[in-house]
Each structure stands twice: as structure tokens, then as C-alpha cells.
């Protein structure tokens, strides 16, 4: 079994960009996002003390990152209460048909940041390329429940981002 430092270095090299994307989904403010990302890296390094290899490195990394971000989101909401919504409740986003990639991405992040933590985990993991089974392993939800949520995500993207999709993204 490799050591804590070695595992962290491998994880940071393989998933550094994914962790940065994940932090963007949880925090809009640039400075706070950087702090959150550092917190995730620290939690990840510390977590490798207890890594027993029972799941893949990828699942471990995403689990630690999402759990750290969830903890951050709970604390942030206590200090600054705001209403988060579920995938079922989210209102349509007004994405202009002539949106370019950057605008579409900004709207997508704004949408994700309004979601409740578990829905954030699902949409972020799906966008990062995970399938229903992997997301189920990450979250603890059943694959059927996750598949339903992914279906909902796809519907929202099709409904709100159709114009941008037909255009330039």
C-alpha cells in the first residue's frame, strides 16, 4: 500500500482539474472558491491516512471532495441563509439563444450553485463523466434514483440550453 503523501500526489495530478471544477459548482465567489479548493486538498491529503483501497481512487477523491464541499455549504448557509432548490423545483434559466460557450458555462454554474447539495453532487458528477452506478456509489442513493435525477438534469439542459446548444457550444 502506498503512503499518504504518494497517494495525495497521484490524486492531485490526476484529479486536480476535476477538483477545481467541482469547487466552481459549489462557490461562485473567486476568493472563497480558492479557499474551498484548498480546504478540499487538505481534507484529501488527511483522508489518505485512512484509505484502505476498498473503493477506487477516483471514487475516494470525489467522495472526500463532495463531502468537504457539503460541509462548507451547510456552514455557509447558516451564516447566510438562502433558499436552495431541488432539480424538480429549479426554475427555467434564461439562456439567450446566441450565447457563446462562456456564457452558457456561466449560466450552467449559476444553475448548479442554486441546487441542494445532493443534486449538486449528482449533476457535477454526471458532467464530469460518471455514470449512474458510479454516482450511486459516491452518494449512497440507489442507481434507479440517480438515473431518475440524471434524466431530470438532461431535461433541464435540453429545456434551458437548447438555444445555446443549437448555436455555439
Amino acid at each position: 500500500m502506498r503512503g499518504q503523501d504518494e497517494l495525495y500526489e497521484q490524486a492531485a495530478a490526476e484529479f486536480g482539474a476535476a477538483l477545481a471544477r467541482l469547487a466552481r459548482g459549489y462557490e461562485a465567489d473567486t476568493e472563497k472558491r480558492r479557499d474551498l479548493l484548498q480546504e478540499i486538498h487538505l481534507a484529501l491529503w488527511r483522508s489518505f491516512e485512512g484509505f484502505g483501497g476498498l473503493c477506487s481512487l477516483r471514487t475516494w477523491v470525489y467522495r472526500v471532495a463532495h463531502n468537504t464541499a457539503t460541509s462548507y455549504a451547510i456552514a455557509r448557509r447558516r451564516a447566510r441563509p438562502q433558499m436552495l432548490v431541488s432539480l424538480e423545483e429549479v426554475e427555467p434559466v434564461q439562456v439567450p439563444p446566441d450565447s457563446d460557450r462562456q456564457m452558457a458555462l456561466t449560466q450552467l454554474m449559476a444553475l448548479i450553485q442554486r441546487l441542494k447539495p445532493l443534486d449538486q453532487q449528482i449533476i457535477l458528477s454526471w458532467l464530469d463523466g460518471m455514470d449512474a452506478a458510479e454516482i450511486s456509489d459516491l452518494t449512497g442513493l440507489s442507481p434507479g434514483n440517480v438515473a431518475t435525477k440524471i434524466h431530470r438534469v438532461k431535461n433541464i439542459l435540453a429545456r434551458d440550453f437548447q438555444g445555446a446548444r443549437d448555436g455555439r457550444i
Partner: protein
Amino acid sequence: MDEFRNLWQNQEVDEVKISITELRAKAAKFQNRIQRRNLREQLACLFVVIAFGWMFFKAPAAVPRIGFGLIVVGAIYVAWHLWAKGTPNALPSDIGNTKGVEFYRRELEKQRDLLQDIWKWYLGPLIPGMTILVIGGILDAPPERRWFPSAYAVFCIALFWGIGQFNFRAARRLTQQMEELKLYTVQDGLDLRG
């Protein structure tokens, strides 16, 4: 739908590069911060114990002496509770082995209990001593000056009630989130306590 995944995965991001040395320093800094906070709490408790302990010995009558003594006992209990429960902000050591739903529930429950139980571990232990002191003050004061300990009692009741309400409201919001989480997972048949 692949275009959305491509859009997401190919966005430009500012990655964070942290060396192991920096991580060790950050971990030590975090630990120091916790230790400093614990020390501050213990010192505050020590101050209360010394101040009210001194008043306990100097008190001219039995009633205020009992009041000061009970406040000392209450302050020691608060300090013990803070020490025994640890820091609420520390992430659990099994963070990588805990799936998202369970972790979310546990974090909500931890925060909710801390807020909800504030009467048990923070406000409640100080009430007996303060009540005895106020009653003693009212009984000892000449009739024309009884308004002062009475006003002090009203102020303390309002302050404690305000702190309690503030925390209860925050706890209620967290309980509501726990209920939402139960509904979210109802089709999975997960056993979510709390």
C-alpha cells in the same frame, strides 16, 4: 448531451498546487487554531471560576454564596461540554468512507444538535446560580431599590430567551433540511435517523 459534458470538462480552471510541506503546515495551522480556541474557552471558564469563586468566599450570606457556587459549577460544566464534544468544524476522519447521503445527514444532525441543545449545555447550567443570585438580591435590597435586581433579572431573561430563540430557529431550518433529505431518499428505503 455529450456537448454539455465536453463544455464542462474542457473549461479553463485555476488549479491549486499545494506541496506536501504546505499541506503539513496548513494542517498544523488548523490544529493550532483549534487549540487556541480551546485555550480561550478554558481561560474564560477559569476567569468565571476564579471571579465567582472569590465572591463565593466573600459573600456575606448563605443565599448569594449558593448562587455564586452554582454559577461556578455551571461554568465548569460548560467548559467540560466544550472540551468533551470537540470542535464542531472538524471534518470526520472517515470522510472518504462515508457516502454523500449519510455524510450530509450526519453533518446536518451534528449542527442541529449543537444549536438545539444550547439550553442543556450552555444556558441551562448557568440559570440556577443566576436565579438564586437575583432572588437573593431582591430579598436583600431595601424595598425602594428592589427595582434594580428585578430589572437585571428581566434583562437576563430577555438575553437568554433571545439567544435560545436565535439558535432554535437555526436548528429548525436544519431539521427541515433533514426532513427534505428523508423525502429525497424515500424511494431508496434508506434508514436515515434524526
